[in-house]
């Protein structure tokens, strides 16, 4: 499966729902999406990975790059993920300490 991206505003946050596979081929599409949103002034991002079926370090790189980008405009980038296969990747790379990972969209969207 390719990569699907759906974005919508939820209060002061922008939610990006990602579906499919984030790999060396599709990751640039996610990078471009994040970059466009920040260029448009959206700096509080929530990326929902619940429908992601595969992610490698290229995907992690895009998320790290996105986090760096929003921080330059004093924004935030938080994740929604409960899939153990993905959480394991964050843990192995130590990125579970870098990202705030929520257990649900509602938790992410109401967090202070």
């Amino acid at each position, binding site marked *: 499966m390719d990569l699907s991206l759906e974005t919508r505003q939820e209060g002061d946050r922008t939610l990006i729902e990602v579906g499919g596979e984030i790999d060396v081929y599709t*990751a640039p599409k996610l990078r471009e999406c994040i970059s466009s949103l920040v260029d448009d002034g959206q700096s509080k991002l929530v990326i929902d990975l619940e429908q992601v079926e*595969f992610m*490698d*370090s290229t995907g*992690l790189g*895009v998320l*790290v*790059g996105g986090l760096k980008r929003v921080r330059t405009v004093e924004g935030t980038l938080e994740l929604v993920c409960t899939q153990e296969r993905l959480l394991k990747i964050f843990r192995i*790379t130590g*990125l579970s300490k870098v990202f705030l990972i929520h257990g649900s969209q509602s938790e992410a969207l109401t967090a202070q």
Partner: protein
Amino acid sequence: MGLATQTEGAVTIAIARDPALVRTARLVAAAVARRADRPDTVIEAARLAVGEACAVMIGVDEPVETAAADDRIEISLRAEMSRFVVTVRGRIAPADPSFEDIDLDPWTLLEGISDELTIESQDGVSTVRMTWPA
């Protein structure tokens, strides 16, 4: 229920340094592991390992069209009696600059998902070998 392969034969594929082809390599890895009746954990690990190794070799910034025709990535999958072996051989691209600030080694993820990982480099080409118990 699947019919396990009857031999310890290897499957070898070679792909151009094109990100669009990595998914195909992942699917082959999963199919070989599944056909060899390996547990789901090994199937998933093999899929991720092939994808990750190819991603590290292809990199994020290298234009596809600059790779020479014979500059390919070779993936070998071998279902032995006691283990499953994945070998990926190719030229490694420069590291993803996104990870510079956080000092993340490009092989960290592969190290974490493999039972055993070895990397050998010669003349600019690296061979990454990963194994999992059967």
